[in-house]
Structure formats: C-alpha cells, structure tokens
C-alpha cells in the first residue's frame, strides 16, 4: 500500500520535473542561439572593422564600397536575432524558475506525504511484527509446524522470510533426519560390509600367506630346478666328453680289433701251418710206427726163427736169437717212444686244431665286434648329438628357471606388497570402523538433535522423497542455465 502511495507521489512529481527539464533544455537552446547569433554579429563587426581599417590605410574604391555596404547590411542582420534570442532566453529562464519552484514545492509536499505514510506503515508493521512474533513463538520450542500469516509490509516480508527459513529448516531437519537415518543404516551396512571385508581380508591375508609360502616353495623348487639343470648341463658336458672319449676309444678299439683280427688271421695261418705240420708229423709217426711194427715183427720172426734154430743147438742161431732180442727190445723201446711221440703229436694236432678253432672263433668274434663297433659309431654320434641337444635344452631350462626364479621373486615381492597392502587395508578398515563408530555416534546425535524438532506428519514422505526448496530449485536452475 505504501508502495502504491509512493508511486502516486512519484507520478505527481513527474510533471513538474518533466516541465523543468524541458524548460532547462529550451533555455539552453535559446542560450546557444544567443551565443551563436552574437558570435556571428561579432564576426560581422570584425569584418567591418577590418574593412574600415583598410579604408583608412588604402583609400576607398568603388568595389570596396559595395563590399562594405554588403558588410554593413550583413552586420545589421544578426542583431534582431540576437535580440529575439535574448528575449527567449529570458523567458525561458523565468519559466524555469517558476517550474523549479513548482517542483520544489511538489517535492516538499511529497516528502511530507511520504513521512506520514511511513509513520502509518511503521505502526502497521509494528503490529504485524508483534503478531508475527506471536505466531513464530512455538518455533523457539522446535515446532516447525508454525506458519507466519502476515502478508503486508515488512512483517509480511519478514513472515515470508521466516516461512521460507522455516521451510528450509524443516527441509533441512527432515533431510538431516533422513540423512541421519540413512547414515545410520549406511553405517550399519558399512559395518556389515566392513566385517565381511575384514573377514575377506583375513582370508585373503591367509591365502596370500599360503600363496607367498607356495611362491617361496616354487622359488626354492625353481632354484633347485635351475641348480639341477646346471648339474645336468655339467653332467651332459661330461657325458659329451665321455662320449667323445668313447668314440675315440671305439675308433682306437676298432683299429686295435682290426689289428687283432689281422694278428688272429696270421695266427690262424700259423696254427694252420703248425696243424698241417703236426698232421704231416703224425703221418710220419704212423709210418714210423708201421716201420717199428714191421721191425718188431721182423724181430719176432727172427726170435721165432732163432727159437726153431735153437732147438737144433746151433751157436749162430743163439747169436741170432740174442740179436733178435736186442732188436726186439730196441724196436719195443723205439715203439714206445714212437707211441709217446704219436700221443704227443696227437695232442699237438688236437691242440692246434682247438687253437685254430679258438682263433677262428676269436677272429669271427672280433669281426662281429668290429661290425658292432661300426654300427655303434653312428649310434654314438647320434647319442653325442642328442647329448648336445639335451645340453642346450638343459641350458635353456636353466635360463628359463633363472628367469622364472626372478619372476617368482618379483611375484613374491608383489605378494609381500599385497600382504602389506592387506595389512594397510586392515588398519584402514579398523580406522574406518572407528570412523563408522564415530559416524554412528554422529548419526545418533543428529537423530537426537533432530528429534527435538516437531515435524509435520508428511515428514515421513520427505524421508523418501526429499522436497526441493525454492532456493535449491533456483540454484539448480542457475546450474542448468549455465
């Protein structure tokens, strides 16, 4: 209402103000015209003066007179305009003074009216403020269900503000209550989750410890594998050397066996020759034996002859018998010797035959061994190649083992880091538990604090669907608008 009155007062001041402004503008225009005409008149006078001086110095000529006449005429022309402008200026100045007086008077009247209005409004506002204070008195006890009903004046503005603040406070309390409940539930859930995480962390720590132990065992196994691979590589090198030595020995043995075979062949030839000689000797012995037998028979026959002659008591027969006995004895001795020689030659023949068979078997065996050795030579070469391949593979295994060992060490370090992280997580979870306990205490405190406020019944709805305040909507709009 006061605004309306103020507007009316301002509209009353508008006319004199407008007229004052117009008058001032008109005054300025007339002053400008006065100035302009006076300056033109001054210029004309100056031109005329200069022409006059020229007359005075140089004399008067016809043309100069015509020009001077035109100058005189033109100098006279501005003066009426100057007079008119002066009159107008004067009039405008007077009119401006009059309008200014009117404006001043109107302003004083308006100020007096405004003071009255303000005084009236102030009284009204005081009453409204008292009513407003009575209305918001329950707010002191935390009742947020209060509502300021003032609509006019500063009390109305204050009521709007209070209502807005109460709404915001209500919203804030509701939100805080909901937030505290949500915080409480979140803290409960977080505690459950934290408990689960602690259990999982514990399990993870145990599994990590087992994994670390396993990795350590793997590292040791890998190290042992690498060491074994190195040993195998060393063994392969020794085997390769042994195989090379074996190949050389086999080659040398083959050469030796070739020599043995040649010697055996020579020995066979020699033994064969001995056997042939023994056979020839045996035949000779047989012939000698036959000769001895024949001699014995001759001796026997001589003995028989001497026996028949002895019967006739002949002395020559007696000598013949004695000679036959001696021949028989010699033949018998010779026969035993021949028999011994025969036995020995049989033994020599048998032994040489056996020796020859042995040498042939030995030669055959040596030939077989040479063939086997020749067959084994490519096998030994293949075994050597395989040994080299095994050696290279074992070296690769050792290298891979060393690399794997390094990787396992890296994994072990990573596991240690993970274990350390697990311990840190455990400590962080403990701290989080403490923080959650504090948050729970805070939520309880918030709930206790907000429980002192009396919220309207639709507070429960606010819990589920938060009400956006005007300020928040404005803020969101501002955010949306950019």
């Amino acid at each position: 209402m006061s605004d309306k009155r103020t507007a009316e007062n301002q509209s009353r001041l508008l006319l004199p103000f407008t007229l004052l402004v117009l008058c001032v503008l008109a005054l300025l225009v007339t002053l400008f015209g006065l100035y302009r005409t006076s300056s033109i008149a001054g210029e004309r006078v100056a031109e005329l003066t200069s022409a006059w001086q020229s007359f005075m110095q140089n004399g008067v000529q016809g043309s100069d007179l015509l020009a001077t006449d035109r100058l005189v005429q033109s100098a006279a022309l501005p003066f009426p305009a100057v007079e008119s402008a002066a009159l107008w200026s004067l009039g405008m100045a007077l009119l401006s003074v009059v309008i200014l007086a009117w404006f001043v008077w109107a302003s004083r009247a308006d100020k007096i009216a405004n003071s009255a209005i303000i005084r009236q409004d102030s009284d009204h506002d005081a009453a409204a403020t008292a009513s407003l204070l009575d209305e918001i008195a329950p707010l002191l006890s935390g009742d947020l269900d209060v509502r300021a009903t003032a609509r006019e004046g500063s009390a109305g503005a204050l009521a709007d503000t209070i209502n807005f603040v109460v709404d915001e406070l209500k919203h804030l309390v509701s939100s805080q209550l909901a937030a505290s409940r949500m915080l409480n539930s979140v803290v409960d859930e977080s505690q459950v989750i934290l408990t689960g995480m602690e259990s999982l962390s514990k399990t993870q720590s145990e599994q990590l410890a087992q994994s670390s132990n396993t990795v350590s065992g793997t590292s040791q196994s890998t190290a042992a594998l690498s060491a074994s691979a190195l040993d195998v590589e060393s063994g392969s090198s020794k085997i390769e050397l042994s195989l090379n030595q074996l190949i050389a020995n086999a080659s040398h043995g083959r050469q030796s066996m070739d020599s043995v075979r040649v010697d055996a062949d020579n020995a066979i030839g020699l033994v064969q020759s001995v056997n042939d000689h023994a056979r020839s000797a045996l035949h000779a012995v047989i012939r000698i034996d036959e000769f001895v037998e024949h001699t014995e028979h001759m001796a026997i026959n001589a003995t028989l002859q001497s026996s028949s002659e002895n019967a006739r008591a002949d002395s020559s027969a007696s000598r013949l018998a004695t000679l036959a006995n001696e021949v028989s004895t010699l033949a018998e001795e010779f026969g035993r010797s021949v028999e011994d020689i025969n036995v020995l030659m049989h033994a020599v023949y048998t032994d040489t035959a056996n020796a020859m068979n042995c040498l042939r078997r030995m030669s055959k065996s040596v030939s077989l061994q040479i063939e086997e050795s020749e067959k084994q030579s490519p096998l030994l070469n293949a075994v050597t190649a395989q040994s080299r391949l095994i050696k290279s593979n074992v070296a690769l295994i050792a290298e891979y083992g060393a690399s794997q060992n390094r990787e396992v060490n890296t994994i072990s370090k990573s596991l240690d880091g993970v274990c350390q992280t697990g311990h840190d997580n455990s400590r962080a979870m403990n701290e989080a538990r403490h923080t959650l306990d504090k948050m729970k205490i805070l939520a309880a405190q918030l709930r206790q604090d907000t429980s002192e406020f009396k919220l309207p019944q639709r507070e429960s709805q606010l819990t589920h669907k938060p009400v956006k305040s005007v300020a928040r909507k404005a803020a969101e709009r501002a955010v949306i608008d950019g």
Partner: protein
Amino acid sequence: MNKHLFFAIAGHRYALPHEYVKAVHSQLSLSPVVGTRHWFLGLATFEGRLIPVTNLGSFCGLTPSEGCTVELDPLTALAALKVDNVFVSSSKAQTHVANDAEHGTSKKLPTLPGNSGGTSNVLREFVTGELVSDKGQNYHVLDVSSLVQSDRFINIKESFD
C-alpha cells in the same frame, strides 16, 4: 723154459709158445672166400705158402682185430690168426699154474685201455690153465692145438641159421 709170443684181442691177453708160431706178418694180401663166416678173412699167400686167415677177435665174438697176423706153425695147423698186438716175452717171463680165481672171467687181468679183462667166453675152453707173467702182466697160455682142431674153428662155411 718155453718162450712165448704174447698177443691181445679186444683187451684180452694171451700167450702162445714159440713152437706153435711160424711167423708174424704185418701185412698180408688177403683174398676173401665167398660163403664163409664173417670171421674168416680169406686166403693169403706168403713165400709160396697158402695161409687161411681167421680174425680171432671176430671169432671170439669180440671187437674185430685190426693188427698183425700170427702165422701158426704148419706142423700145428695151416692157419693164421689176426690179432690186435703181439709182444715178445722177455727172459724174465715166468710160467705158473693159474688158480681158480685167476682162471676165467673171475680173474681181473690188466687190460688195455678201452677193453675188458679176463678171457673171452669162446677162448675159455682153449686155454691151458697156465699163466705167463712178464713185466707185471699175466697172459693166458692159449691151447692153440685144441683151437685149430675144434669144429667151430674148422667149420668156416657160412651158416644161415
């Protein structure tokens, strides 16, 4: 004291008095006679004499003899015995009568290698019962007269029984 000629057949040792022996032959050229027994080797000729030769080992049912041939004195019999070996008795040979243990197969006589001792069953009835000891060996004295006059020795015709 009679001198003896010792001989052996299949390891059995026998002695013949010198008066029953004409000669000993190492090799004789034999002519087989068809239709005779297997132990009758055939006829041999030596210095114009025709000599029937009997393999004494085969005759006794022993291993056939492979040695020399003992030609008997013609006054005893016109025959020759093929034996394995012959030996001449030394001057130290002694003759004595064999007792019952020494007579026959019960007497374990020294034998040549590979042959059994004692007398053969066939010749058991043609020994005199005397033994000649010479150089540690005992020899049964063969009664060659009885042998050459026996029907078994005379009958050389081959039998198909």
